């Protein structure tokens, strides 16, 4: 953990805006702290299997009856052991660095520019960790930026005086199989289930199954997509806090695991390790459903500064 440096202003700033009447008490977090946290999490996420994912893979291995499925899951677990021992990334696709910054409204970021701090952290982590640089500056010209920047940053302003930094490097074998469906309200829950299971079925063996499925339901098109991505941060095995959606997730997981895609797409009971849904308010005319498919490594690390 990064040492927490709490700098509370003992007294109001020397020139407080005369008209506010509020005492300003902002907690300062430096760009250096953000940069260091991002850099360390890029390396950890890529080289060390997350404990929740390891547990889910072991459980899946023990529940499979097919020799091939057991062999694939055992290979994936063996790969994690080798990665840890040799300090190698679990997968050569060390992803595009997706960074969630949940910024407490009582936090003041000092000592630089937050975008530059995050990108500096990504560049350092990817260099020092011998991670692959997979980012091109322009989608048509496609010249590699050589340091895996820029990161994809999702900022959210939240109550409090903490800054929660999550780093989720995302590989594109699975990203390419993801989709946003703009359903009609009349399609309801049945339509949601069809959209999610259909997207996973169409992805088949391509996204490195067993997958983890992030689902954003509601909002607008882009809101649903960001929720689907954020849903992937929830640890595998942790149920949805809403009992209704927890039930929907269980149903979706059971249906997906009947598709017989199986580990590596070679068949078996384990096509997905988890489904995670984040719902949102939406418009009277719409039912957006975003399905973000993530591979069996689904890297995620979170730190609270």
């Amino acid at each position, binding site marked *: 953990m990064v040492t927490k440096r709490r700098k509370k202003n003992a007294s109001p700033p020397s020139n407080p805006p005369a008209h506010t009447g509020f005492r300003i008490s902002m907690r300062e977090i430096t760009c250096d702290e953000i940069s260091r946290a991002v850099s360390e999490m890029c390396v950890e996420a890529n080289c060390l299997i997350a404990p929740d994912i390891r547990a889910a893979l072991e459980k899946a291995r023990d529940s499979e009856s097919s020799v091939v499925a057991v062999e694939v899951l055992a290979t*994936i677990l063996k790969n994690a052991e080798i990665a840890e021992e040799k300090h190698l990334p679990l997968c050569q696709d060390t992803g595009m660095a997706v960074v969630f910054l949940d910024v407490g409204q009582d936090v003041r970021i000092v000592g630089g520019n937050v975008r530059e701090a995050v990108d500096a952290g990504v560049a350092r982590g990817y260099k020092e960790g011998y991670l692959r640089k997979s980012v091109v500056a322009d989608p048509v010209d496609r010249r590699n930026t050589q340091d895996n920047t820029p990161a994809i940053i999702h900022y959210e302003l939240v109550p409090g005086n903490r800054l929660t930094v999550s780093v989720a490097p995302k590989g594109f074998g699975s990203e390419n199989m993801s989709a946003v469906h703009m359903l009609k309200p009349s399609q309801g829950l049945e339509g949601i289930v069809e959209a999610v299971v259909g997207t996973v079925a169409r992805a088949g063996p*391509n996204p490195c199954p067993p997958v983890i499925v992030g689902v954003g339901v509601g909002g607008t098109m882009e809101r649903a997509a960001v929720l689907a991505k954020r849903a992937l941060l929830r640890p595998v095995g942790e149920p949805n806090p809403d009992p209704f959606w927890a039930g929907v997730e269980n149903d979706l997981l059971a249906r997906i695991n009947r598709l017989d895609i199986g580990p590596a797409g070679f068949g078996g009971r384990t096509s997905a390790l988890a489904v995670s849904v984040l719902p949102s308010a939406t418009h009277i005319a719409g039912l957006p459903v975003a399905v973000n498919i993530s591979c069996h490594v689904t890297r995620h690390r979170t730190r609270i500064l």
Partner: protein
Amino acid sequence: MPARINLSTPLSPESAARLRAGDFVHLSGTVYTARDAAHKLMTEMLARGEPPPFELEGQVVYYAGPAPAPPGMVIGSVGPTTSGRMDAYSPELIRRGLRYMIGKGLRNAEVTAAIVSGGGVYFAAIGGAAALMSQRVTACEVVAFPELGTEAVRRLTVRDLPLVVAVDSRGGDYYRRPN
């Protein structure tokens, strides 16, 4: 554990013809890495009438872009990338003599037909088992397009690369096995 068939390059057409979708194999010998950008450049070179950057005849192409090699290692993590993105280029390369491909995921009907007509094989590696695969590489040399970084063409010497026959020379497709 499923039984493994040991194969060495150069793979003879006869030994390739004996392989069936679903066979587990260990491949040893020489393979060339190439993915999106290298495929595009190779196809453009062939269209201009230039020779390919390596002799395609009877060769094995591995769809992979490795992570950088840490000090003291031959190569970084090197698992397969999704093969479907190379479907646009593969039939032409197969017509020019390429016979074997390693990747992960589905191939389209045109590629499968080209594999059958060329008597080739499409092997699947386990996506994500990249650190494990790196330990099976004993030599690595960039042979073309160094400016592409991870996407450069590399000649790898491999020992017991764990693979599964995904599409065999008769068109049998392990990914599209009947339920």
